[in-house]
């Protein structure tokens, strides 16, 4: 083989391994609140528990709510920024942060906005024939 081709192959292999290594380093795994206790930065997916109190506090400058993870644990989540737009409409949340004393401190929060039908309450509809 020509030396140029060998060099090229080495460069491509080196580049690809570095890229994949780097990607592997920056990807973590989704967990639940229980496992998150042992991690310094955990991604926990779940749903908002709207039956409990939630809201932004002017005193602490934090947004607090309760979230139910996929194993069914409900934990308090503290997010140090204002309530994001569309929070109430999201049917799925991913909080990124760490667990301390049974409270999850989120640095980041992702929301998944649904097809609206899932959250629509059928009792809200009025039959057209009656209107």
């Amino acid at each position, binding site marked *: 083989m020509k030396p140029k081709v060998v060099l090229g192959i080495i460069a491509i292999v080196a580049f690809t391994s570095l890229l994949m290594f780097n990607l*592997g380093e920056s990807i973590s795994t989704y967990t639940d609140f229980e496992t998150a206790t042992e991690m310094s930065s955990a991604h926990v997916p779940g749903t908002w528990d709207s039956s409990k109190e939630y809201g932004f506090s002017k005193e602490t400058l934090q947004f607090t709510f309760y979230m139910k993870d996929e194993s069914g644990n409900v934990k308090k989540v503290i997010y140090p920024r204002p309530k994001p737009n569309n929070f109430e409409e999201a049917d799925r949340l991913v909080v990124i942060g760490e667990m301390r004393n049974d409270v999850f401190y989120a640095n980041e929060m992702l929301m998944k906005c649904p097809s609206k039908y899932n959250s629509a309450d059928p009792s809200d*509809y009025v039959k057209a024939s009656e*209107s």
Partner: protein
Amino acid sequence: MAEVGPVFGILGKLTITFSFLFCLISLIYYYLAAKNEDEKKLRIGNWLFGLKGFFMIVASAMLVWLIFKHQFQYYYVFNYTSLDLAPKYLWSAFYGGQEGSFMLWIFFSWLIGLGLMRWTRAPYKAPVLFFLGLTQLFLISMILGWRFGDMTLGASPFRTIAEEMPNAPFIQANPDFIPVDGTGLNDLLKSPWMMIHPPLLFVGFAMMTIPYCFAMAALWKRKYNEWVGPALPWTLGANLSLLTAIFLGGYWAYVTLSFGGFWAWDPVENASLVPWLIGTAGIHTMIIQRKSSVAQKSSLIFAILAYVAIVYETFLTRSGILSDSSVHSFVDLGLYNQLLIFMLVVTGVGLGMFFWRYKELPSPDKESKILSREFMTFTGAVMLFVLGLVIILGTSSPIIGLLFNDNPTPPEISFYNDWSMPIAIIMAILTVLGQYLFWKKYDAETLATALIYPLLITSLLTLASIIIGGVRNAYYMLYLFAGFFAIVGNSWVVGRLAIQNTKLIGGSLTHVGFGVLLIGILASTAYNRPLLDQNTEDYNAAVKRGEVQDPQGFTISQTIEMLELNLDEPKVINDQYIVTYEGYDLSNQNRPGQQTYRIRFQEVDGGRPFYLYPEVYPMLATSTPGNVSWSVDPDVRTGLLSDIYLYVAGSAFVDQRNKQIERQQELLQPASDETEDQLQAQTIEFERGSIKEVGGFRFTFNDFIQADSVNLPTNTSIGVRAQVEVFHFASGQTYLIEPLFALFEEEGQTFVLSPPVNLSTHDLVFQFTSVKPESNSIELSITGLDEEYQEDWVLIVAEKKPFISVVWTGTFLLMAGFTVSIFRHWGRERKKSEE
């Protein structure tokens, strides 16, 4: 509202089916026409192609009609519109959902097909149209809605609510059920940007199909060289549309979606960027192929991959696979398998044809030298492609991440930044070398001489910006140097070309734009600062030193990035501005209950003050107990050097409303104690013309007026109305109320009539309880007033973003450069066709 019968929906599905069938038959004719070079079959194919589009237009018109006629028995109409939606947003609701956006995509693709029929020459014409038809066949199949037992092919925009949710209890109780109103368009989509951003994106998607079709035609017909001529203007056009769409999306995210910036490496953003990058790589290789008949292989592969990238990203964003990692990907409509097949076919056919013909493909006789335009341009293309690959890799984390763990998250943002920065530096330097070599032959020595002045100016600019900007990071210094080098070096070329022939400057101009963009991106993202007062800054400094602990004894690591302002109490922020909250206006115009806050900025050392008007508005939310959720619209003051970006994080008004909602919720509970509510009523006594200030309001009793006797009971002895002016301090709003007081007799007894008057915006109820003629005064009972005056405050998140304008300028230069190039290459192709 007349309702249309189910026939309409069946007709709609039929039209789409016709469109699909005509597409299928036209494919057969195009195939035969391409195989045998048969003019007649091509003409028949063209007619069928036209009919397909005609039926798609009819179907689109029917859907638009259903939307405008509020036919909520159709799921699409129900899910994306409502009665109160303004007509302009009814239009955008047409492509607000997946199904409609497929229709729009097919429509643009069809229009472009008509253009291809007119302007493409043999032998490419029939095969190009064949492949265009093939992609449309897949797109139409996404909205067919055919049922085979449990399987459905496509999601029809004409499916009814009963078809969509057959198991819902209200459908089971009454199969003919029709909702009175739809669930409406998401408030965030009610934006003028929504009206132009998606259509432009689909024009870009549709146009990016063309280079793919030409490449396939070239491989089929074994004509590997001539195809780039006609394909080039289309590719440039696709790039211009995608670029404009990306720009509009970024601007929309920045000014109305409160994302806080113009780029977040979100999968949906990446989905539009990657095809652009690969398409641009293709443009580079096509240009050198046209000039020197080399790089046929890479032009073909980039043209194929650019479209594959579009289909792949369509798969990622529409199949629901990204549901955890993206803020705004679509939910799965059951199209996962169909999209997967679409992607596999496009990729398989594309790469299959390429490798099938691979051995025949021309190779250059001798390798080009490093200092040649071919080598430089090719390297640039490879760099663009590599950047595209890195981004695809990160975006594919739900699939590729499985290599690392079972439940992979998206990569951290730093993954994208760490890789794109060095690539951008290399690209920036290459642009200058490439542009110099493109127009003139140089060897190492003459090139170095030619670059002396540009390098000198670059160094001066870099040095100046390092000193002025206080740049400490060596990596940033290198990046700045590369960016300035791209600007200066390419401007040099633009200047030289402009003297010779202005039509030639397109390429160099885009490269100047690229350099400007690089500088803007660094300045606006790395030097973003929150606007804070001195106390908060001191607190944040302590947090950074690790000196602050929370009550549980944990060290706090999060700094505060919010600013609290009390009504009419100025605060100094960043030693630069005096900021004052001057109240808010309540209006019901665009969105009921919207508050527009007035925030005044004044430079510490004088100058003209200016205002920012962030907005907060309530949205109905079915999931919250109180049914109201609050959304914000930021306001941006655009400046030449820096922007101020600001939104309201909380306010006394929103707080009060939330408390009222809570109170109403409690009242709905059966066990609640109503006396508490009554205690809150208080009585004010005042004379005619006097003023009282209570609980944040000023009440002025102007006068009595005689009540209209028509509305009074018979036997009324007294019937007066009091004219009272209610002024709300915080919002500056004035209301006029005229409560009634009447005495009437019935069966010898005297009764008082004083119906309550509601002021719903502030949840106040007034009752005119008595008249005291002896002192010329009245008594008003007011419910819902706070006993003590509540201070009015607002919490804002504000940021100073330097040089955002530079990012836009860079984008505009890129657009301008592409436009010039389109005219040049298009003009040349037109001339060729006329010959």
